[in-house]
């Protein structure tokens, strides 16, 4: 495995320590770091692989093509990923805007339609007791459940991103290494991209007045770390890595499984690959 696809133990420890540490401090520090990074990567005109355009000196984006795998059969719906993402990326602390979320599909005996909810559902918020921590309420305890599973969701960093196509300013763009980003200093906040994304991956960060969404933790992956959600997942339901490296976890995941993508008919060609999702997942 390459250095990029497998974080060092020290880095993992440091990250976990940060998660456990004072939330406000971490949030502020991370926020500042994110800002700094997005400002520098936003120099879209710089040629690819020009080291100066990256805060990480030894990172070469031409050598990477990032990809993400989700093994829904493993997800236990603990929502650590959602909380870690919120903290790591300074995502607005409310129950309606997420860079990543988890969906719960429950099929109850005798019912025609599958019941679907996510951590933002009022019942689940009630159970967690706050809009900043997340928990799936045990609402189907007494029901006769036929089949149930969880599906983690996030931006698909599409090969043909509808959001990039419609952005009138070019504030949202696709990087050479396959990540779709938003330049916070250039976005006008028109939200055309929010409408255009078929997956509901985007929202408006009201504090900043700009479009916001998952970056696959670009500030981390360019330093050889894993995205926060992948890092914290206790069961390994989220898999991340370099598609150009045939031995990376994500390449192996795709090779060893029959994977599928969401809403393939949209023509977006997503780069988040799923295993173990059912027909009603879209």
């Amino acid at each position, binding site marked *: 495995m390459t250095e990029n696809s497998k974080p060092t133990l020290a880095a993992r420890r440091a990250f976990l320590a940060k998660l456990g540490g004072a939330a406000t401090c971490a949030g502020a520090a991370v926020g500042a770091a994110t800002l700094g990074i997005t400002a520098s990567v936003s120099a879209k005109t710089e040629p690819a692989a020009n080291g100066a355009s990256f805060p990480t000196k030894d990172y070469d984006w031409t050598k990477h093509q990032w990809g993400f795998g989700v093994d829904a059969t493993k997800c236990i719906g603990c929502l650590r990923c959602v909380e870690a993402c919120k903290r790591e990326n300074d995502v*607005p*602390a*409310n*129950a*309606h*805007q*997420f860079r990543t*979320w988890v969906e719960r599909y429950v099929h109850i005996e005798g019912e025609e339609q599958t019941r*679907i*909810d*996510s*951590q*933002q559902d009022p019942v689940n*918020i*009630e159970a967690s007791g*706050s*809009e900043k921590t997340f928990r799936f309420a045990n609402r189907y305890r007494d029901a006769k459940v036929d089949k149930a599973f969880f599906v983690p*969701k996030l931006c698909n960093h599409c090969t043909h991103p*509808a959001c*990039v*196509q*419609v*952005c*009138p*300013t*070019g*504030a949202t763009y696709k990087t050479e290494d396959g990540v779709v980003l938003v330049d916070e200093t*250039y*976005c*006008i*906040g*028109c*939200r*055309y991209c*929010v*409408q*255009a*994304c*078929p*997956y*509901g*991956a*985007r*929202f*408006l960060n*009201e504090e*900043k*007045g*700009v*479009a916001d969404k998952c970056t696959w933790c670009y500030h981390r992956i360019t330093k050889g770390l894993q995205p926060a959600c992948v890092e914290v997942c206790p069961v390994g339901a989220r898999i991340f890595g370099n598609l150009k490296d045939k031995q990376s976890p994500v390449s192996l995941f795709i090779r060893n499984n029959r994977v599928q993508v969401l809403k393939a008919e*949209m*023509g977006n060609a997503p780069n988040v690959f799923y295993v173990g999702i059912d027909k*009603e997942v*879209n």
Partner: protein
Amino acid sequence: MEPIIHFSPYTGWVYPNETIFEWSILIAVYPYITGLVAGAFTVSSLYQVFGFERLKPVAHMALLTSLSFMIFVPTPLLLHLGHPERAFNATITPHLTSAMAMFGFFASFYVALLIVEGWFANRPYIVEQAQKRTDLLGRFYRLLTLGSYDVSEHALRYDKKWIFALAVIGIPGAHGLHGYVGFMYGSVKAREWWSSDLMAVIFLFSAIISGVSLLAVLYVATCKMRKIPVDLACLKGLAYTIWAFIMVALLLEALEFANLVYKNREGTDMIMQYVTGPLLVPYFILQFAVGAITPFLWLSYMIWRGTTGKALIVGVTVCACLVLFSVFMMRWNVVIGGQEISKTGKGLLSYHLPFWGKEGALMAIFLTTAPLGLLYVLTRLFPPWADAPTHAHS
């Protein structure tokens, strides 16, 4: 527990991020105003280019109306942006694959065209005022002459050529601008309710009927205000225009809806549940039954019976008001309706319209009526009345 951020109630399954409505009523007001611009311009060009003589009494006002509304077109957009101060980013670095990127250019081009055409059309009046007046306003008119005081027959004939040419360019300009607005929605594949090839044309025809209706109302209102009799031939001309275009508009909308239902793609069940539920009143009753079919039948009746006099004036005015309302409902049903149907195809949201605030009902009403204020000022500066003896141009 009080929610931290206002979110929309929903039923079924919707993506978490969808619970915040991103495009408010202002985004419905924007195509509405743009449509009025295109429709009003249609009236002016029917006279200037296609020689509909009977529309002469409203031809000049049509141009001023178009200009007044056009100036306000960007305001709902600007108010809605998260960073209005960066609005020019879209014009400095237009991202050409975006259906929104060229809007700034098209809109500015069109405003310029309207101003130039308006200038030519009003030149005789401007020159006359510049020579007559000695006050501050005289200065204003003198500035406006741009140094040209030649109102000889020869010069006026030359002006007319320009007016004609600009009107000819203006037709694709106005309609292109509005069709383009329709395309902005029609091209969004993520939303089944918007994503349609017909969207641009539907927008266009509804724009035309709304603009012509606005002129009918304005014409009758200005005649009453100026205490002059309504030129029935002119009003009839407007009524015919509304009647003809409303037919096409209705047909297109029906076609679009039939297509959606007939193709029955994923998510159509949800759409049917939506149109027969929350959308029943705003869509079938208000937009179609009250706003489009009623005026269509009423106008048909009046044309058939050859209604004239007061009955015609009242009839056309009421029909025009209904059409104006219907077209607003159409914008609303598209923009808000589209967002009320979840992208999951498995849930519905409901938009709550605030009254106050930057994106509230009051602001929407203000932005839709403010152009009328501007129009009032413009009619004072450049009287568009064809009956005014001072107005040399015809």
